[in-house]
């Protein structure tokens, strides 16, 4: 791969020194550190929660996972969206390609540099979080929990790499950086917000709930009783299934599910043992197995974006000025 390492080194040092990356890194480090404090606090109040709760933060809304669900895409897209078209418009791409390198080395070098930047961001953040939480709690992760943390790190890198390759795709397809930036913002909003809204809407249209007159206090009582019926519960169940399934077209939801599985939050469910609700934590292997379909879906999405943009880039006509 002639030239790939050269492109890789240059792009990586560009990323790590760019204001864009440093701002996002600073925001994420700050919020993650705060969420580690919150997580540690939660664990103190819930001794059963275990070390991994620093990433999910318990009831508190701002956890590492939700941070990655919402802000992670921005990091990936920010590193990719103008990667190719900026060089096309500035004319440096046509200079670059007059060198004895393969055209795909340029693309691969840029992608790998983006992944490396993402990996340093995610890895750094997680290490800092552990570093903040351990002295607060007075104990660190067990060996199994460490493996979970590594799995979570890899999953997060994969998720951000998906957004990176989507950004790269936009930068190959659109000639103007403003176009690819708008496309990036649109897909980000779609993934983190719009899909959930659509899913809720579709679910409520497909499974209408029986009419519940409201008004008088007795009706409220009636309403409360109605929600306890078997029929009502099965309707709500159907609704939430539809909602989850539609939600899965969003990579953010896939990541959320996979990360929850790895941290042992999702597959656990609540088992009713002896009349008491008790949370049974699944083993690490079970968690990883449960996250597998989502991981695979994110990976396939990343691969698809990568392959399409790679092929388009190889066929790009290098005409001056675009």
């Amino acid at each position: 791969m002639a030239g790939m390492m050269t492109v890789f080194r240059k792009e990586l040092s560009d990323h790590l020194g760019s204001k864009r990356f440093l701002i996002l890194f600073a925001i994420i480090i700050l919020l993650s550190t705060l969420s580690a404090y919150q997580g540690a606090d939660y664990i103190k109040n819930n001794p059963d929660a275990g070390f991994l709760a620093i990433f999910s933060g318990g009831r508190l809304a701002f956890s590492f996972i939700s941070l990655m669900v919402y802000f992670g895409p921005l990091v990936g897209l920010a590193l990719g969206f103008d990667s190719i078209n900026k060089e096309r418009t500035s004319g440096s791409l046509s200079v670059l390609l007059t060198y004895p390198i393969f055209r795909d080395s340029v693309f691969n070098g840029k992608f790998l540099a983006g992944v490396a930047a993402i990996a340093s961001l995610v890895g750094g953040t997680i290490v800092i979080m552990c570093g903040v939480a351990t002295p607060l709690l007075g104990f660190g992760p067990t060996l199994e929990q460490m493996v979970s943390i590594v799995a979570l790190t890899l999953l997060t890198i994969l998720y951000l790499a998906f957004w990176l390759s989507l950004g790269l795709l936009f930068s190959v397809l659109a000639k103007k950086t403003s176009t690819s930036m708008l496309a990036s913002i649109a897909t980000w909003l779609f993934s983190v917000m719009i899909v959930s809204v659509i899913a809720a809407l579709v679910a409520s249209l497909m499974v209408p709930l029986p009419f519940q007159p409201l008004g008088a206090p007795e009706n409220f009582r009636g309403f409360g009783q109605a929600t306890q019926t078997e029929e009502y519960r099965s309707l709500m169940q159907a609704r939430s299934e539809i909602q989850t399934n539609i939600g899965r077209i969003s990579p953010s939801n896939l990541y959320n599910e996979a990360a929850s599985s790895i941290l042992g939050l999702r597959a656990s469910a609540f088992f009713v043992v002896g009349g008491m609700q008790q949370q049974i934590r699944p083993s690490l292997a079970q968690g990883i197995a449960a996250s597998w379909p989502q991981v695979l879906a994110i990976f396939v999405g990343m691969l698809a974006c990568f392959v399409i943009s790679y092929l388009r880039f190889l066929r790009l006509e290098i005409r001056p000025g675009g």
Partner: protein
Amino acid sequence: MPERIIQTSGLTKIYGEVTAVDQLNLEVNEGEIFGFLGPNGSGKTTTILMLMGLTTPTSGTGRVGGYDIIKNSRDVRRIAGCLPEAAGYYEDLTAKENLDYFGQLADLPRVKREKRVNELLEFVGLGKWRDVKVEKFSRGMKQRLGIAQALIKDPKIIFLDEPTIGLDPQGTKEVRDLILRLNREQKLTVFLSSHLLHEVQQTCSRVGIIRQGKLIATDTIENLSRGIAKEEGYCVEFELDKVTRRLIEEIKTVKGVTSVEEEGGKLLVYMERDNRADVSRAITKYGATILLMKPREYTLEEIFLRYYKGAG
């Protein structure tokens, strides 16, 4: 017989329905400055892109420095430097960092690269500016950086696509002087594309004229000029102390004179063959004095326009 450094046969590039380059047969000798002349959109840039292996020809073949431009395009790019049209650099890197990056891409080892970058920056007159970010550079400086960039791999030939476009007279002169120095001091072959006749005339030993993708003439500037002269017949420029209508009529009656034109106080006398003696005798007989008499030479502009109209 000089060595051919560029040779193409039937090189053709079709974009959709537009034939950008049409059956181009081009030969460039080692050590010359070859001017590739044509109006905008005539296929100059496309030809350079094909020769550098940046775009694949629809049909036809070519060789640069002995390497096939399709099968061995990487080898071509190893020995040929190029300053593409509308070239750009990494604005947030310094001149030195930009060149260093290109040096890495050209596979130069670190020590050699550092030396070469510094030499080239001095050569193009950017020594003082080496640690300044390129975003602060003027157009002329960027273009000189571009020439340094094209030279970093120590090429056998460099392609310069419209190197002086958008430069002020000072910048144009600097770039032109650099090109001439490179050719003289390092015996570098230069392939220069331009739509500026005047520029080509001042630098190039041989020119190729391209029009709508077709190469319509290749030769030295003198030969092209002579060729036109032959077609136009013989023309002599006279400067007289006085010019009257009757004198013009008088000259027209001289045997062999086809037409007489008055142009800015000068007379252009066209004749079938060299018949200066009879014409000057007629003028003297009429009572006018000849201040200057010289055979008409064609400027490149005239040759150029002539080829443009003629071939249509």
